[in-house]
């Protein structure tokens, strides 16, 4: 079978697992992003878009796979987000699944959310020294993604793309990364890594909380809520929202309706609270004909129910339910 043909614009890249089985990675040069602000993440011209990446692939393994084509700068997996984005992505059959925003990709790259925090604070408040978070020991490098997921491979050089897409005579074999083991060893390592020494846990939690407090303090400083001052927007309206002490607004000054009251209003019971048990405007049993009408309707209702029951049993009967044995 020749692999030169493309499938929906993708070049199938044959990767042999063993003598009998071949895995196919579908490769295409990354084309322009639909939204702006993506260029930084996936530089056009030297980014390769891969579909159907092996679920256990690591960055290193993909680097090794494309070694012949050129040096790989970065590998970005986006399979993990597929559960969430599946609805949107299915709409755009083109598969431009690079629509995920940049922040998320960072998360993917770094595996853990803590470094992100660190970086963000670094950006946000450079003048104050933000506390550093002590990291927990890293998990084993392998992350198992759902099968059939996609990835972006960014080469250092644009010339690598045609080389990577060029049909090769020989099937490439799947390189395996000896540093991140699989199978039993993986699970043993995972088990161990989830149980870090106590002092690291403590240091991590403490430093994280320090950072948290720091950020909270900073937010507070930036916030427009000041104690004792009502919040008035540009148009001169005062913001009335719960949060202050003693049933007052956040800034103070104006009282806010109690929660209970609000709930009652929402339930529609507000009116009932004030006017208790209003008599119906019309007496329903004033005229004799009304009484008879009511009686008659009751009887009709009764009969209707009876007919319904009958129909039900008739249905059961037709399904031969009443054969006792």
């Amino acid at each position, binding site marked *: 079978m020749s692999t030169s043909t493309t499938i929906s614009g993708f070049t199938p890249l044959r990767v042999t697992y063993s003598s009998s089985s071949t895995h196919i990675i*579908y490769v295409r040069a990354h084309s322009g992003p639909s939204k702006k602000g993506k260029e930084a993440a996936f530089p056009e011209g030297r980014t390769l878009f891969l579909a159907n990446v092996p679920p256990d692939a690591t960055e290193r393994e993909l680097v090794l796979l494309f070694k012949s084509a050129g040096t790989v700068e970065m590998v970005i997996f986006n399979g993990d987000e597929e559960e969430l984005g599946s609805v949107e992505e299915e709409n755009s059959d083109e598969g431009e699944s690079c629509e995920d925003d940049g922040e998320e990709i960072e998360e993917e790259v770094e595996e853990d959310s803590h470094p992100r925090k660190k970086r963000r604070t670094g950006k946000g408040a450079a003048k104050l020294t933000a506390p550093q978070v002590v990291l927990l020991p890293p998990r084993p490098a392998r992350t198992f993604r759902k099968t059939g997921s996609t990835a972006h491979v960014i080469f250092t050089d644009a010339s690598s793309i045609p080389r990577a897409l060029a049909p090769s005579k020989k099937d490439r074999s799947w390189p395996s990364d000896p540093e991140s083991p699989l199978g039993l060893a993986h699970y*043993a390592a995972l088990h161990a890594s989830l149980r870090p020494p106590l002092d690291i846990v403590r240091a991590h939690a403490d430093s994280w909380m320090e950072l*948290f407090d720091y950020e909270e303090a900073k937010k507070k400083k930036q916030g427009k809520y000041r104690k004792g001052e009502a919040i008035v927007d540009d148009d001169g309206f005062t913001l009335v929202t719960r949060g202050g002490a003693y049933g007052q607004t956040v800034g103070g000054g104006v009282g806010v309706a109690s929660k209970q009251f609000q709930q009652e209003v929402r339930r529609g019971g507000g009116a009932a609270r004030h006017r208790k048990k209003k008599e119906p405007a019309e007496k329903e049993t004033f005229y004799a*004909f009304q009484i*008879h009408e009511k009686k008659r309707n009751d009887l009709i209702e009764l009969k209707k129910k009876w007919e319904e029951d009958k129909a039900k049993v008739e249905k*059961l009967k037709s399904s031969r339910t009443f054969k006792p044995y």
Partner: protein
Amino acid sequence: MALDRKRKRGAEVIVQKNPTVFEEEPNRMDAEDDASAGSGHLSSGAEESDGEMQVEQEEEDISGKPVTTSTPHTTRRPPTALELRDIKDATDLYRSSSFKLQIDALLPNARPKYKHSPPLDRFLAALHGCLNSIPTVEPRHPLEASKALLKKGIAVPYISPLPTPETNWKVGFEKPSEILLVGSWPNKLSVKAQDKQPFTVDLAVEMPSTLLQEKDYLNSRFFQKRAYFLSVIAAAITNKKKGINADAYFTSPSGDPRQICLTVRPNSGSDDDLTKLNAEVRIIPTMGSTSPIPIQRLSPSRANIRTTSAGETAATELPTPLYNNTLHLSTTPKAQLLRSHTLKNLVPSYADGLTLLRIWANQRGYGRGSKLCIKGFESNGAFWTGVMDLLISGEDTSVASSSKSAKRKPLGKGLSSYQLFRAALDFLARHDFARERIFVKSETVHKFAPEEYPSNSPVFVDSTGVNLLASIPIGSLDTLQYDAKLTLDILNEDLTAQDPFREAFLKDHRDLQTRFDVVMRVDLSSAKLRVSSTHSTLDYGSLYDTLLGTLLSSLRKALGNRAKAVACLHHPCEENLLLETDPTHSPTIYIGLILEVEHAFRLVDHGPTADDPDPQAATRFRDFWGDKAELRRFKDGSITESVVWDVQTSDDRTKIPYYICTHILGLHCGIPGSDIQHWQDPFDATLRLPEDVTSVYRAAKAEAGFKAAMTAFDGLVKSVKALDDELPLAVVNISPITDVLRYTSVFTPTAITASSFTSLPRCAHYLQPMDVIVEFEKSGRWPDDLRGIQKVKLAMFERLATKLMESSPGLRATVVVGDPIATSDIMDTASLEIVTPQGWAFSARIWHDRELKLLDTSIDDRPHIPPHIKKKLPGGPDPKVVRASLEAKEVYVRRFLHAPRHHRAVAALCHRYTAYAGTVRLVKRWLASHWVLQKYVSVEASEILCAAVFLGSAKMGTSQPYVASAPGTKERGFAKVVQLLKDWQWQNGIFVPLYGEREGDTAELPKNDLPASGKEGVWRLSTELDPDGYMWTRDAPDAVIARRIQTIASATWSCLQNMERGSLDVTTMFAHPAKQYDFIIELNPALLPRYYQNIHVNPSVWARKGKYANVVDQDKDNHSTVQPGYDPAWRLFNDLSRVYKDTFMLFYDPLGGARFGGVWDPRLKEPRPFKILGKFSAIPAAKEAAKDKTMVVLNKEAILCEIERFGAGLVTGITQCI
């Protein structure tokens, strides 16, 4: 407007047309209600009954007219008076209107189709002619007479003792003096028997009184003559030339050779073919009222069998009540027929009520059928008519009764069929057959005084004066009573519960495994009574009946209040060819016990005290119990004769009833234990660990058992609470949420100490951590941020761990940071792993109540804005955050709110129902062995399902009454759960009153608000706290798995039914057929820490491989301490199922399974167009298959290769099944 008004007037007129109906109706109904509602006061309508009848008659007159003039009705028209009466009747006289309609639909199906009866009429006419044309046989010596008949191919079924040449009486034949159709057929009261057994048309053939002599009541002489009489008829019928074209067999309906009858079945193909009608004719020789035998001689206190020589006086003879009663029965068929005819005419719904009662009885094995039936009820149609007679006529007030209880008064004659049926059940459920006697009121005075009846047998004398229960063991009546109670309970239940109609009439309740707590299959072939007397054998009529009689009465006596009922089931007697004489009994019987759980497992039975005034009492006790009886001194100082059952384990304890039965059967009936088959041991074995492993535990003196685990938990709670001062926040509560701490884990928990760990094989290294939840006191210092809370939890864990390790030496505590899969940082993932010095492992989590509030806010920050407005508003929370929060909330609600409550409820249930824990354990084991537990059926879901069997699915009030149908042993519980799973229409859901709490308490629990479309589970198990019913079944089982479980349950059920054939093999129910999977992933059992729990464990896996005993196992891995919860196979299984969720389904036995089974998603079989997110590993389809180049197919080989890579080291091979 005017027109409108006019029309209304018209309607008015119709309504007012017959005001009497409307006025009278409610009153009458009230009166009826009083009579029927309180089932205890059934007899209150006695005096009014006449008046009622009149009212009804009048109504019929009044309302009869509108019928003829009634216009074609539409639903918009008010019902006519007649319709109205029907409706009112249905709702007031029946359980509900649909119940009435269902009864109406049922009844015709249970009755013979009389439209097919012409061939029967023709056949009966032919038979009549044949019987009348039989030539007279002159009286002659019985042996001589039988020799003559033998030539015609008929052996006269003489009773033992057989006539001898010295016999001085003669047998003969004359034309029957009367031939009469009797029984239920002529009155059109026949009810279809189970399993397509034919209807019997009873034909009473009266023996002319000239054939009988006065002294024929003595020594079975009447029966010998009767046998000869019947044989002559048989000879005439089978006569090739003169006879009719029919087969004839001797049958003995109740197994008593004295009551032998002739069953005649026309040959198929003849014009009298009765196969369409499915009927056969039974010829019963009877004795006319003019017979010379004096009825007074048949009193139960008379001795009519002379075993002593003629010289002695009759005073020393023992009475022969059974014999006398049997003889008496020969006179009654005609009288019973007349009586039932009278009743049928007297009470309009008599026939329907009787039919309902008999359907009910047939469904429970009190009647003929090809399956096992209850001993004594094989052919006792007269009993059911007798019961109806009693209800309608009441008890005879003239008979002085020893008990001063009020006599049953007659019921009203206007009762509906359902009310009659209920009254009958009420009588059966309340009447104490063993003590009280019943004499049905009749026109004639009862012939025998109550004192004349023997004290140890039930007495139910019908209007003809025979005791209908004489030959029925009391155990069978106990069973009847129990069944009646159950049905009454169901009928009394709320309308919303399970369909009571189905339960009462349509469901077959004869299955041994769900009916009895203990089932034993007894082979009687080597039985021999210890004390056998010719007298009782003669009284019973056969050795078999004597044996059964003794066996059952001694069993009943031995079990005492341990059992509610001791039932004996057997296959009814086969029909005999005309050349065989003795009725053949099946050599095996089944003994079913319904246990009284409170007493059943008592260790000691007390007998008479040492200073008992009656010196014989002790002797009798010793005689009854044999060498088991001992004189013992008890703690309270009393010295009594007693029987003590020593038990080693809790399994042994549940076997006490079985031990008693084997002991008694061996002692009194000479039945060796090997002839008694019982199924508890193999069931127990499925819950036991292999001996190799338990011996290591024992050697290390490891703590084991549920009690020990709970003690360890209490110890942990104590040591944590002791740390209060050293922790930043005090611990308020620690609640367990694991099945280990509620008696329901499959295996009894065992601690693994450091010493036992090293000697255990690697495939037994698994230690189950017990999940607990720690609740700290409330504090304002928690951060108001979800991520922050998780971090503070880490800090709390760290502090707790440090302090715990300081305070209790030897304890090991580790913080587990996060979940191997979930990466969400707002979900509760961290836990504290504690291994106590004794070797118990705990996994603690922290419950912080503010989390829920924060999650709610992040899901919906503006709850006060209605959703349709919110949709239009800009902004709103990030969908990704919402999703993460929803997931976190689901985990939170389940783990911290529902799990502890569930745990407490289940633990309480375990205490209330002793068999519940065992049932859950068996069911879990079964589900696990079929590879669906945990992944597809959560542990909690299986517990709720089991609870359904114990609690019933009815909505109970605030207090949960003890449910009478609750199984008493785990085997029965298991069978019931299997039955439930087999029959359950999961589309309808099931309600289980697990918590038994008031409605008010239930509102507080927040619901999970993950979108309903996202749920895949189809099992709806609602409880009071979870009305939606998807708390434990949200993701699984989906429809595919649910159907699969149903299939497995049906297979298991049919396997359980083998119990009736004695060929039940318990292990096959737990053997999973692996053939149905597309591929099987084999794991290396030696590396699985849980392999020792495997159901079909292979001990060679951990057998020492090397040559030298002292060589340390090379691959003994580096960890030398126990790793709680470390199970790589389970991890691998979860990873694979997650990664390939859309490619295949994976199945695995979490309890030590060594194989995964996978099934490809059938949707991926066809080539499909290529998509980037196809969610499966694809390979371009072969050229010829796809013209279009973009078609791709599933790349199976590559996936299997990836699986092998995933499980490197664990997976030993993958086999594909085609």
